[in-house]
């Protein structure tokens, strides 16, 4: 019992730190993806052939679309957006997300389920 309490306390103390770290990881990855996109565009200037591929390459990488979609989701359901951020950018398990957000494992599962489906649909519409 004591061990379980200890583990819980440790997780709570670290919760904020992990949440911040997941967000840092997200921002770093997005900055990098944006940079890659700019470089690609810069290089693309020399190519004048207008094939279907050129248009495909000029489109934003999906990671930027994902970032936009995550922010959009946060506007009307912040908890889902955060749960997804913790999972994919923080590498956290359902149990860990539950501790950080203060919700049950079952609730985390439901939040992820709908949040991810919404993101997937949102991204496919772009």
């Amino acid at each position, binding site marked *: 019992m004591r061990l379980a309490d*200890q583990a819980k306390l440790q997780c709570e103390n670290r919760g904020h730190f992990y949440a911040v770290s997941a967000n840092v990881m997200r921002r770093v990855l997005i900055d990098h993806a944006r940079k890659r996109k700019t470089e690609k565009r810069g290089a693309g200037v020399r190519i004048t052939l207008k094939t279907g591929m050129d248009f495909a390459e000029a489109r934003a990488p999906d990671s930027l679309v994902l970032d936009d979609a995550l922010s959009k989701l946060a506007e009307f359901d912040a908890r889902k957006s955060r749960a997804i951020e913790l999972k994919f950018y923080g590498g956290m398990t359902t149990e860990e997300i539950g501790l950080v957000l203060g919700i049950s494992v079952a609730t985390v599962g439901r939040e992820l*389920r*709908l949040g991810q489906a919404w993101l997937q649909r949102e991204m496919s519409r772009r």
Partner: protein
Amino acid sequence: MKAAITMDRWNVIEEIFQSALERPLSERSAYVAQACGDDAELRCEVDSLLASAGNATTTLDQLVAGDLRAMVRSADASEIGLRVGPYRLVRELDAGGMGVVYLAVRSDDQYFQFVAVKMIRRGRESLERFNASVPNGRFLRLWVILTSASFWTAVRRRTAARSS
């Protein structure tokens, strides 16, 4: 979604979506039809979300993993390059009074794994403390703050072993 969605509407969508997924596949369609009544827009909304639910996890997983790989590939080796145990520090993620957080990668025969590593100044006590041999001796403690689930489990196992 055309206009900003109202909370009420979103809650209704969620309720039907979650309830549908709790039912066997064969009953879902009938349930959604019944729950949405003659609200065709609601039904379309729920149906399209259910259709997206199946492979959403894989899509997002691959997206983020692909980003990480691309970032590591393009990282300037001279930028950091420091080896700490099995990890190579790839780039600085954040810095503060307590230390510096790096993105690190373990890439050998057995693993390809990303971790965030926080280097904490000497003397800082922490549960996730490992001895690390750092060449310049400026930082003596390594704190793994964020990582794949498997590493997290290993950290917890160590912690549990110490407490018992």
